[in-house]
């Protein structure tokens, strides 16, 4: 279904069907209007964005690059591609990843779309990209994501919150998620607590040193404790024990922290 057909259906058919949710949202109308205008004024640019392939990065992920990605007109066109749904999920995720770089309007759309997106790669990227959304849009959407039943979504939410310029708003989430049932969520929450030097996280992190079984999580916890309060970290018997008993990166890190 093209975007014009869909918008027609939403605007002119849906009211007769009586489906409240079929009303075109503000952002959808804005996308459609923007796409129409761009097609009318710069069809080459519109066709380019609607059809360009991403490059394959060195890590194997697709990524859209080029001067056109820094043009705010690209945002509605990329959102239109998303709505069309014709691209492979990884390409859709690449479209989402590129949206903040355009400088255009996109965050209302992503905040609205992520919960109903079925593909996990696309959904995860949408939540991660909320890192760059405007403050209030991000706050609502990320808090919802942090409470998702999907552990991958919760982890993405914590990770996005970590890098936001207003990360202090999310400190309660970082603290709460230290006891999440999912390993990755706890690990990312520990990291966030350390990076933002949350004093209230110390006890929880100290407990994690004993309870966590994955070395990479224990490493994150160790580093976080040192970042928050190096003296406190050095006082923990668990840290001494790790320095004494553990090999590899974890043990060396503990030794280094004790000597710091």
């Amino acid at each position: 279904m093209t975007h014009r057909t869909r918008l027609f259906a939403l605007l002119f058919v849906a009211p007769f069907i009586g489906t409240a949710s079929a009303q075109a949202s503000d952002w959808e109308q804005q996308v459609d209007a923007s796409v129409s205008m761009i097609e009318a004024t710069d069809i080459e640019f519109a066709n380019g964005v609607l059809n360009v392939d991403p490059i394959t990065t060195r890590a194997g992920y697709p990524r859209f690059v080029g001067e056109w990605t820094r043009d705010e007109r690209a945002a509605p066109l990329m959102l239109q591609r998303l709505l069309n749904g014709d691209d492979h999920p990884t390409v859709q995720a690449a479209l989402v990843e590129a949206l903040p770089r355009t400088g255009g309007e996109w965050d209302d759309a992503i905040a609205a779309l992520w919960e109903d997106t079925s593909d996990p790669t696309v959904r995860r990227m949408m939540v991660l990209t909320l890192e760059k959304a405007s403050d209030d849009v991000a706050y609502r959407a990320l808090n919802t994501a942090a409470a998702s039943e999907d552990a991958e979504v919760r982890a993405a939410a914590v990770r996005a919150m970590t890098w936001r310029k207003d990360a202090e708003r999310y400190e309660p989430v970082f603290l709460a998620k230290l006891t999440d049932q999912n390993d990755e969520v706890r690990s990312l929450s520990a990291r966030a607590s350390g990076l933002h030097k949350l004093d209230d996280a110390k006890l929880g992190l100290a407990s994690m040193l004993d309870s966590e079984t994955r070395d990479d999580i224990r490493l994150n916890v160790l580093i976080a404790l040192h970042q928050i309060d190096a003296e406190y970290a050095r006082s923990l018997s668990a840290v001494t024990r790790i320095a004494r008993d553990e090999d590899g990166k974890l043990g060396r890190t503990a030794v280094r922290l004790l000597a710091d």
Partner: protein
Amino acid sequence: MHPFNKPRLLTTHLALGALLISSAGCAGAKERKALEEAWNNFGDLAGIGNLDDDDEDGTPDWEQNGVEGDNDLLEVEIPANVAAGVKDGESLLVTLGGDTDNIRVWLDGEVLMGDGGEIEATLTTGESAIILGVEFADLLISGSLTLSHIDKDGVELYGATFDVIASPMILNHHLQYAEEMWMVEMSSWGYSNLDMAEAIEAELGDRFQTIPGTDYGYDVWIQDEVEWSTLNGANGLRTDLVIDSIRNTGGSGLDDFPEDYLVQPDVIASSWGSGWGNTYDSFGNLEISPPVSVDGVDYPYGRVFWGQRGTTGPTEDLRDQLTSQGVQKPFQQDTIWLCVGHIDEVHTFVPDPDAPRGFRLLMGSVTAGYEFLEGLGDNTAIPKYSSDYHYSTVGEILDDTALRTWNESLQTTYLDDIEQVFRDELAITDEEIIYIPSVFEENRWCPNNTALALIPGIVNSLIATGNDETPTKLFLPDPFIRANNASQDEDPLIQYVNDLLPSSSEAYWVDNWDVYHLGMGEVHCGTNAQRTPDGEGTWISNARHLIEE
């Protein structure tokens, strides 16, 4: 082992020599001395496996038992005076030892010994030198030749045993002249790397070649696809062995590049490992140090290393193969914390004749990165980072305390360890290290808590090593720490790094922002270089201790 070793022979023949001198006079004494010297001059010789296809008929030459134009046989010369010294009733025997099934000894176009057949022969002698050709089936095939001059009573008058060994594969390092370099060219709606290709070609000329990206699915990561090594032997014997990564299979991406562009007489391609490769199988994650001595052990061809942690790393088959070659004893670095995971993201070696051992190690450093940024004004505009990273000024990067704290943990947890491993395994000293400002980010595509260059990874550069006729040229990714209308001359990071680089090198800063930097790589990742090997079979003497370890 031959029963007649040189010291015993020498004693025996000094006695015989004395007898001969008394009967033949001074002229005969000179001849005898020359003859003894000739026999004492036989020494171990380096050959190469006959793995290439000199007649280009699609079959490796060893499998054909004689090939027109074959240039891979090790010539063993039996000097004229040795041959002429064999009188009527006497004989000159040659015996092949060692891995005889995988060695052929040729004489006058015919197989004399080996390959599962005879291992001893009597040579027809005259006044001329005798040239044997020794052919090897593979890498590091080891054999010996024993020559014996037997008198009419069956007593050995002279004898010599020496080793003949096929070269290991020796990977190229950055102190070797870059003979030829490649890059994949791409241009599509919205992005292109043609300007970068043009900039490099302007400085390298015929040594630089572009490959059409349309033929290879726009796979620009040519560094990751192949790694160059050489087999080299006495008298200029050389075959280049291109190690073909398993990162691509079934003709996808650059999979066919070696066969299309590189394989020819004296150049072969081989792969180790099978199945789906992972990022650690890419050859930006396989590097070689310059020659070093460590704890009294000489590594005249440097040491191989790659990124790995635990069992996560390059395919075991390749690791085993590289270890088995001996001469470049491998070690590992932890690169699992990097999004791409390649060791070339955080270091490189550059030639520097003024350095203690002729090179410097350029190490990516977050400490140096933040010190450098703090030395600039907070209002220093960096518009290039505005759209793609949402930092418009240097001050905005510095104000991102979470980013800084995370970067500092990368330095203490990972980068310091990488540096220490270089110090331990290569005996790197303070004087040899140049710290290059670096800052990393956690890109949304990347696995949790893995790092990717935010400021372009300057160490991730093309090292176009020069020779006596041309200087070394470094092609580094432009970091764009400047306003849009400012030139590279006004870029403080370019100036800073230029002042650190060896004065013997010429630095060229290329724009690789879109296709490479935002593509999670830099200049080194997008280029590859074939280099001139060191020595002609000198490994048989200067690296023998490593092979036999």
